[in-house]
C-alpha cells in the first residue's frame, strides 16, 4: 500500500503518529480505535446528538464505510497479522447481528476477542514456528518433534469446539469449557503484554512469553519447563484446569471481563459454536431470537440483587431502573439521561455497558420512530 493511502487510513482511525510516522499501531489499538469510532457514529453519543437533525443516515453510513475500509486495510498491513477475511465480514455483520443477539452473546462478547486472538496467535506461529522451531530442532532433539505435532494440533481450535458441541460425558465437557476459557485468557494476557509483535521481537524474547504462563504452572504438573515456551497452549489444554469438576456458572462469564474489558470481533463460525455449546450448559442461555429478553432484569436477579440494591449502587432511582428493566419506554427519561442510567446500571451488573446501552438505545429509538 502506498504511504499516502496508508497515512490516510491511519488518520481516519485517528492513529497517525505525528511525532514518529513510522510508528505503527498495534492490532489491538487499531481494533479499539475502530470500535470506538464506530460506536460514536452508529449510536448516539452525546457528541453526535446535536447533529441528529442534519446528519443523514446515508452520510453516517458513509463515514462508517470509511472507518471500516481503513480498518480492513490497516489490519492487513500490521506486521505479524495475517489478513483474515472472516474478521471484517464479522464487522459488517455485527450491526445486524448485534441487535438480535441473545442474552448469552453478551457474556460471550468477552470471549470473542479471545477466540479471535486465539486464531490469530495460532495462525501466527505457523510462520514464526519455522524460525522458532529451528533453534530447538538443532539444540534439542526428537523431543521437540513431538511437541511440534502437538502445537500443530492446537492450530485447529475448532477441533475443541467440535468436541464440546458433541459431548460424551458431562464432566469432561465442563472441563473442556473451563480449559478453553482458561487457555484463552493466557492468550489474551500474552497479547496485551506484547502488542502487535513483529515476528522478530517474539523470537528475541521467548522467555517473556514463558513468564506469562508461569502463574498457571503451579497448577500443572509439567515436568519440563523448557517445553512450555513452545507448548504452553497445548499443555494448558492437556492438564485439567484449576476448576475441574466445578460447573460453569454464569458468574464465570463476567469473570473473563476483567481480563479483557474490550469487546472484539471473533470469527462467526467459532462464535456460534461457542454459543451453542454454552447454550446447552446454561439453561435458558440461548433463546428464540424473537423472544424479548430483559437482560438487565435477568442479570440482576441472577446475581440475587434487589432493585433497591441496584438503586443504591447506581444512584439511579428505583422507578427509573424498573422502567429501564421492563423497557417501559414511555416513562423513561430523555435519551441523554437514559443512556447514562443504562450504562451505569449495566456496569454495576458487570455487563458490557457499551453493548447493552447501544442495543437498548437502538430499541428505544425504534420505539420513538414507531411512535412518530
Amino acid at each position, binding site marked *: 500500500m502506498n504511504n499516502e493511502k496508508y497515512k490516510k487510513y491511519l488518520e481516519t482511525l*485517528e492513529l497517525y503518529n505525528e511525532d514518529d510516522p513510522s510508528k505503527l499501531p*498495534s492490532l489491538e*489499538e487499531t481494533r*479499539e*480505535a475502530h470500535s*470506538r*469510532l464506530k460506536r*460514536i*457514529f452508529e449510536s448516539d*453519543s*452525546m*457528541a*453526535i*446528538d*446535536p*447533529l441528529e437533525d*442534519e*446528519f*443523514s443516515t446515508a*452520510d453516517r453510513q458513509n*463515514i462508517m464505510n470509511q472507518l471500516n475500509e481503513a480498518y480492513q486495510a490497516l489490519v492487513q498491513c500490521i506486521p505479524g497479522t495475517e489478513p483474515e477475511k472472516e474478521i471484517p465480514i464479522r464487522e459488517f455483520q455485527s450491526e445486524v447481528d448485534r441487535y438480535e443477539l441473545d442474552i448469552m452473546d453478551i457474556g460471550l462478547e468477552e470471549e470473542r476477542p479471545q477466540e479471535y486472538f486465539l486464531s490469530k496467535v495460532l495462525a501466527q506461529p505457523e510462520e514464526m514456528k519455522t524460525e522458532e522451531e529451528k533453534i530447538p530442532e538443532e539444540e534439542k532433539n526428537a523431543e521437540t518433534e513431538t511437541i511440534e505435532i502437538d502445537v500443530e494440533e492446537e492450530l485447529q481450535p475448532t477441533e475443541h469446539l467440535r468436541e464440546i458441541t458433541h459431548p460424551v460425558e458431562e464432566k469432561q465437557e465442563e472441563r473442556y469449557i473451563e480449559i478453553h476459557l482458561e487457555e484463552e485468557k493466557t492468550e489474551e494476557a500474552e497479547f496485551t503484554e506484547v*502488542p502487535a509483535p513483529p515476528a522478530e521481537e517474539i523470537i528475541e524474547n521467548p522467555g517473556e512469553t514463558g513468564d506469562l504462563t508461569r502463574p498457571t504452572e503451579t497448577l500443572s504438573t509439567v515436568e519440563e519447563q523448557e517445553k512450555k515456551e513452545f507448548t504452553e497452549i497445548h499443555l494448558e489444554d492437556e492438564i485439567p484446569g484449576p476448576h475441574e469438576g466445578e460447573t460453569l456458572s454464569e458468574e464465570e462469564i463476567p469473570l473473563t471481563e476483567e481480563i479483557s474489558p*474490550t469487546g472484539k470481533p471473533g470469527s462467526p463460525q467459532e462464535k456460534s459454536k461457542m454459543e451453542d455449546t454454552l447454550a446447552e450448559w446454561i439453561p435458558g442461555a440461548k433463546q428464540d431470537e424473537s423472544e424479548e429478553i430483559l437482560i438487565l432484569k435477568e442479570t440482576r436477579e441472577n446475581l440475587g440483587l434487589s432493585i433497591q440494591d441496584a438503586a443504591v449502587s447506581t444512584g439511579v432511582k428505583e422507578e427509573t431502573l424498573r422502567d429501564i428493566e421492563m423497557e417501559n419506554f414511555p416513562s423513561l427519561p430523555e435519551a*441523554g439521561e437514559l443512556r*447514562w442510567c443504562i*450504562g451505569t446500571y449495566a456496569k454495576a451488573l458487570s455487563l458490557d455497558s457499551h453493548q447493552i446501552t447501544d442495543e437498548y438505545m437502538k430499541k428505544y429509538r425504534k420505539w420513538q420512530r414507531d411512535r412518530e
Partner: protein
Amino acid sequence: MKSEIWVIGGGKGGTGKSFLTSSMGMKLAQMGKRVTLIDADLGGANLHTFLKIKKPEYSLTDFFERKIPLSDIIKDTDIPNLRFITGDIRSLDSTGIKYTQKLRLYRHIKSISADYVLIDLGAGSGPNTIDTFLIADKMIAVTMPEITAIENLYLLIKKVLFRRLNRVLSEHGLRDAAKKAWNHKTSKNIKSIRDLILYLKSLSPDIDIVVNKALSEFKLHLILNQVKNDRHIETGFDTKSVLCKYFGIDARLMGYISFTEFFWKFVKESGAFRPVTLTASTSQEISSVVQNILENKQVKIPGLSNE
C-alpha cells in the same frame, strides 16, 4: 518578534473560557513568557474577576471611541510578565462596531509586544466573535460534557468554518463561492455545513484541493472543562472525533480539567491571582493543557497504549 495569538472561544457561556484564559495566561507568565490577556467579551467582560483586579481605567471602549492606541490601555498586573486589556464596552453596542474599527483592533492586537496574546471571547457566535476567532494563530475552544455546550460549540465551528471557507475560496478567485452556494441551498439540496463542503468539493478537482487544504489547516484545540467522570472524558474524545469526521477539520483534544465543587467560593475568597492555584490537581491539569498546546500534542485516549 511577532506574538502568537491564542483565541479562546467555545460558544456557550459558563464553560470556563475566562477561567482558562486567565489560568493559562498565568501559567505562561510563570514560564517566563511575556503574556497579554485581552478580554474581548465586549458585552460581559469578566476576566478581571479571575485576575482579582479592579476594572482597569481604560478599556477597549477608549480604543474604539477615543482612538487611544491599544498599547496605551494595556495594564500591568501584579504577576510579572502578565498584562491585561479589558473589553468593557460601556456605551457602545458591541454589535455596532464597524468593520473598519474591527480591522484596526486586529492590526493593533497583532502588533502587541508580547510572546503570547490570549484573547477571551464572549459567549455566543456573533460576527465579532467569529472574526476574532479567525485571527488566531491557535484556535482554542472550551467546552464541557453537556449537550448544550457541545451544541453551541458546533454552532460556533460551523460559522467559523463557513467564514473561513468563504475567505479561502475568495482568495482563489472564487469570490463568495460558499456564500452563493449557501444562498441557493434549497435548489442544491444543501442542508448542513457538511453538505455544503461536500457540494463545494464536487464542483471541480481544483476546488476540492482548496477545500481540503482549508479543512486540514483548520486546527481546533479543544479543552474539556468540568469533567466529573470517565464518561465525560469519553465525551470529550467523542466530540473531537465528530469534529474531525463530520466537519473534516483537524480537531485535537488538548486536555481536560476536572470539575471543582465550590469553584466560585474559591474565586471569591482567594487573594489576587489565586484561582489558578485552586487545587494542586487543577493547576496540574492546566499546566499540562498549556504544555500540550505549546508542543502541539494532544491527549491520548486512555486505554490505548501510547509509548
